[in-house]
């Protein structure tokens, strides 16, 4: 018998206790060491835009994922909304683009054209097939991500614009916000005219207001008018078609609120408001087309409006009552095509994890809807949210923003045109001809390059 066999018979010594602790500690460390060896450390870069509700939620989900997967670290960075696309472009140019990022859906054609983003493996995202993947999202949303039978984006947020009414002001002028909510463009002008209050050449209250401060808003707000009038941004040959008969009709409608109904002052808040919807929130205008409005923003800017609950969204007017369409846009989670394969795989898992709890997203970022159709809309918390049905209807019935390779140039050309028409009363047809020519030149230059 070896001497050790006699040990149990001996009293517990300090040495045996220490040895025991050592052995236990070593045993306890084994699974971790084994895990660490199985999964090598992975460092990812991830960029998104800033938004007071959406960005913190996204950051929280990423942090949660890294806590559950200690081998993964994510350098999470965010930028102002308008700067994200430029930052990513410069990142690609300098080789510093992140492995994953949130892309505004109007940039997708550009990333496609330059082969900058990688196709996603729908099975790794938890879908049996591309069809099942597509059917899970709002159609206008997922359409931005699909190319050549593959998806290149995992739709995250997607929302439609709605006409926000100040119901108190409606009642003040004897209008019923339920019955008299404008359903056609003519009605919009007439209702806006009734809601307008002027003192000489000064507007005390504008009945309706189009945003005039940025090219992005110009396109968002003009898009459904153009498509509703039967027009289109580009014809089948790729030539800009905003100067068509339908385009002129749409622009005439766009200008009518100021020029025909005298219900808005396009020069007023062109560049003075930090938020485009501030005139409406401060009750200086009665109606405004905008994206879903977070109650926290209403509370912050106009507590009386929030506590009195005298606002509501309704669908866009149309050329035919009930046929109004909303302008929509969204955001996709995408993967840099230059990212190594193992990083792409981890990003798939990360994206799947981010969207695995849609209700968590709604709780953090309501009323910004996810692009996901189901898995959250039926929840009582969502159902109880004020006017959620209008918000979701705008999302589901909306038309996407024009998707083209020269989006920024197109938006700038249209912005210049609208400013000339609204502020200088320039001839609509001639101005649209100029804009269309500018857009065609930009397209031509892009093709050449």
């Amino acid at each position, binding site marked *: 018998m070896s001497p050790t066999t006699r040990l149990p018979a001996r009293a517990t010594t300090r040495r045996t206790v220490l040895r025991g602790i050592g052995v236990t500690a070593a045993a306890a460390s084994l699974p971790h060491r084994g895990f660490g060896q199985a999964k090598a450390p992975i460092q990812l870069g991830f960029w998104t835009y800033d938004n007071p509700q959406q960005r913190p939620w996204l950051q929280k989900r990423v942090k949660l994922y890294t806590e559950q997967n200690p081998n993964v670290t994510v350098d999470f960075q965010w930028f102002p909304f308008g700067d994200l696309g*430029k930052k990513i472009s410069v990142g690609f140019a300098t080789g510093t683009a992140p492995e994953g990022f949130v892309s505004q859906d109007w940039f997708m054609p550009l990333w496609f054209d330059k082969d900058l983003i990688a196709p996603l493996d729908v099975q790794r995202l938890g879908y049996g097939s591309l069809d099942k993947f597509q059917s899970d999202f709002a159609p206008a949303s997922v359409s931005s991500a699909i190319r050549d039978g593959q998806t290149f984006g995992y739709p995250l947020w997607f929302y439609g614009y709605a006409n926000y009414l100040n119901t108190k002001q409606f009642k003040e002028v004897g209008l019923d916000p339920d019955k008299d909510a404008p359903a056609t463009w003519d009605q919009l002008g007439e209702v806006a005219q009734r809601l307008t209050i002027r003192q000489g050449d000064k507007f005390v209250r504008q009945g309706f207001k189009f945003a005039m401060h940025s090219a992005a808003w110009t396109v968002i707000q003009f898009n459904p008018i153009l498509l509703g009038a039967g027009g289109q941004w580009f014809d089948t040959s790729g030539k800009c078609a905003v100067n068509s008969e339908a385009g002129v009709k749409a622009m005439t409608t766009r200008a009518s609120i100021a020029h025909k109904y005298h219900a808005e002052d396009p020069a*007023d808040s*062109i560049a*003075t408001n930090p938020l485009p919807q501030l005139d409406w929130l401060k009750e200086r205008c009665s109606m405004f087309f905008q994206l879903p409005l977070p109650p926290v923003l209403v509370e912050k800017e106009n507590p009386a409006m929030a506590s009195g609950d005298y606002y509501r969204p309704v669908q866009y007017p149309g050329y035919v009552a009930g046929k109004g369409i909303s302008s929509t846009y969204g955001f996709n989670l995408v993967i840099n095509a230059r990212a190594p394969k193992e990083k792409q795989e981890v990003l798939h898992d990360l994206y799947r994890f981010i969207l695995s709890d849609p209700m968590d997203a709604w709780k953090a970022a309501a009323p910004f809807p996810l692009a996901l159709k189901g898995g959250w809309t039926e929840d009582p918390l969502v159902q109880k949210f004020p006017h959620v049905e209008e918000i979701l209807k705008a999302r589901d019935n909306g038309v996407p923003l024009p998707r083209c390779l020269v989006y920024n140039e197109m938006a700038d050309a249209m912005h210049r045109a609208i*400013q000339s028409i609204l*502020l200088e009363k320039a001839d609509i047809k001639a101005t649209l001809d100029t804009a269309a020519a*500018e857009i065609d030149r*930009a397209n031509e*230059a892009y093709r050449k390059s």
Partner: protein
Amino acid sequence: MSDLSSRIARGVRSRSATRPRPLFRLRQRTNTRLWGVAFILPAILFFAVFKYGPMLWAIGLSFTSYDMVSPPRYVGLENYASLAGDPVFRETLINTLVYIGGSTALITLVGLSLALAINTRVPGARHCMTLMFLTNLMPIIAVCLVWRFMFNPYGLVNQLLHVFGAGRIDWLTSSATVMPAIIIVTVWRFAPYFMVVFLAGLLAIPSDYYEAAQIDGANAIRRFWHITLPQLSPIVYFVIVVSGLLCARIFLMPYIITDGGPGNATRVLSMLVYETGFSYLKMGRAAAISVVLFVISLLFTVGQMHFFARSEETFE
């Protein structure tokens, strides 16, 4: 004497005896030069890497098509040819020239007028100068935002004009008034700075000249025309060139106050460079616009040099 002469002679001899040989002297001179070069080398390298390098790179880039993603591709003069046929570029070029011309002229006139007023040494003039100079110390973003609000149709400027019976002026939303509005902000910002430069020039003119002219019966206008202006001409030249170059590169003012609008009324070349490069991802074209802007600045400076050289000859 003879002792002194002999000592001097010895000294001369001894100096000539210790004088270094020509080859050594050459080495020493080269050494000194090398040390001099070594001392200024960091500055030369700094300018080469951070100033002239990028400049040359931009000129090279202007002959390429470069979207910041794919490598640059040589396209010859295509960028310049397409600029010549682009109405937006032409309009922007005209805006830039109008802005440079208007701002430079007014900055010079207002700066000189303020300096002449301060130079009269009326009580409180120095305090006024300090207050005026504060416009240069304010952050440009804040300045632009404040002026944007002041030029609102219902803003302070219109409120003040209303007191004098003026109607509403859409300062920032009418193509007729928007460029003057931007020029007003520019002059408000920069004229006090150049006022100080003019004042330094005015103080350097000897008072004897004025006294002599006064004795000869010259009135204030003649004294200004025949003494002040010729004496100040190098300063005037400096102010025109520097303010002109400053205005040629202006970006933030039109960008923040109007974003180039309404329409295209206040879009200047530097804004177009930024938009073309970073928003439209056409770096080659943006570089070509930069080169045009550089050429304008160069012509402006050379033109001024010739003009003032001839003026000085006339004065002399």
